[in-house]
């Protein structure tokens, strides 16, 4: 499945969606990627998104921007543009977007799942990658304690396949992470329509278009039953 962006549309995206955007055939030149770990500091994330937006505002060939981010704990609060339309998914974070519009959130499973996707594995910081950094710094015992503390609310690792296919190293990563931290592991196929609608300019109740001068705010987001991280 390929998607054609509407004319004069750019994308600001978390790097975590790189595999999905690539699989959907979105031209690299239309996308500004930002690092996945920015979400850990919502104020910093907002600064970075604003910087990218300001750059796109200078481009006369751009009239709309898909902001491929969840609300990320306030990372998009008050985001606005004087000239550009912002197209924003009504998701609290990237996980519902990656899972897609499954009826009743059936894809998400229980609330104790730690979700991984190809982008999370290839471009993101996870407790598994951080474990190895901590081993070097503090030794195995403390690194394992730290990761276990961070993951103690989770019982399973769920590997999500959206538009990007899962490769062997993704499966290996998920399996090894689950094994190290004593979690179960499974794979799910997500519904792809949310990302498709968002990027193709299709009307959807899960996508909001913010006209120039107006801003993103928490009140426009629904209160879904599931939110993952």
């Amino acid at each position, binding site marked *: 499945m390929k998607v054609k962006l509407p004319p004069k549309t750019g994308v600001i995206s978390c790097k975590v969606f790189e595999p999905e955007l690539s699989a959907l055939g979105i031209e690299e030149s239309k996308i500004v990627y930002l690092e996945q770990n920015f979400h*850990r*500091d*919502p104020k910093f994330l907002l600064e970075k998104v604003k910087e990218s937006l300001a750059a796109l505002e200078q481009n006369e060939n751009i009239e709309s921007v898909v902001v491929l981010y969840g*609300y990320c*704990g*306030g990372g998009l609060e008050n985001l606005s543009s004087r000239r550009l339309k912002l197209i924003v998914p009504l998701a*609290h974070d990237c996980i519902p977007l990656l899972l897609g519009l499954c009826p009743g959130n059936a894809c998400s499973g229980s*609330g*104790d799942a730690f979700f991984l996707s190809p982008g999370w594995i290839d471009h993101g910081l996870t407790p598994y990658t*951080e474990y190895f*950094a*901590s081993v070097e*710094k*503090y*030794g195995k015992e*403390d690194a394992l*304690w*730290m990761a276990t*503390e*961070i993951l*103690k*609310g989770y019982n399973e690792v769920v590997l999500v396949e959206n538009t990007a296919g899962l490769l062997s190293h993704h499966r290996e990563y998920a399996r090894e992470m689950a094994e190290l931290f004593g979690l179960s592991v499974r794979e799910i196929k997500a519904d792809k329509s949310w990302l498709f609608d968002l990027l193709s300019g299709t009307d959807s109740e899960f996508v909001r278009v913010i006209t120039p001068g107006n801003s993103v705010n*928490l009140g426009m*987001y629904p*209160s*879904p039953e599931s*939110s993952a991280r």
Partner: protein
Amino acid sequence: MADLQAIKDAVLSGKRKDIVALVQSALDDGVEPEVIINDYMIEAMKEVGARFEAKKIFVPEMMMAARTMQTGVDIIKPLLVGKEGGAKKLGKVLIGTVFGDLHDIGKNLVMLLLESSGFEVVNIGENVTPEQFVAKAREHNVDIVGMSSLLTTGDPHVKSTIEAFKASDMKDKVKLICGGAAVTKKFSVGECGADGYATDAVDAVRVIKKIMNIAA
């Protein structure tokens, strides 16, 4: 001779394995346990907090510093039993993550920094209902209740927890403070009527001290 600066450095850099020998050596040299805790470990944690606020260190470093301090305190604790001074508490704080949210790293850091700063903390865990918050606050007769929410979907539960306190016999007995990535001052204090809001663990200590009129 005891190397007290090394104790501070060990906490600062999260060298948990070093702290045991360093603390034991200081105790063997006759250094008062309270001096080790108050003048070196707590001072180290203050510095850790400042570095965290300045984004010079992040959650893993802070977790390891707190664990290192805890390891040192565990050695000293038996020596403090029955002694005044080391056990003196500034106040009692109940802390939990609101209903629907299982995240606890930030909350636990708040707990560790509060304990390091001289507060007694009752941690009631995660996914705590408003009714549980109120009941536990009553049971433990606390001064402050801290509630945490990492997810924006937890906002309604922050609100209902505050409402539960306002409608209970505890409304004039405790002060309510909110924090967590999803919570804002505008929402928690402005809309819900909390007594305080903290941006992070370091700020939580500062705000609680301010609410309780304790010098920083």
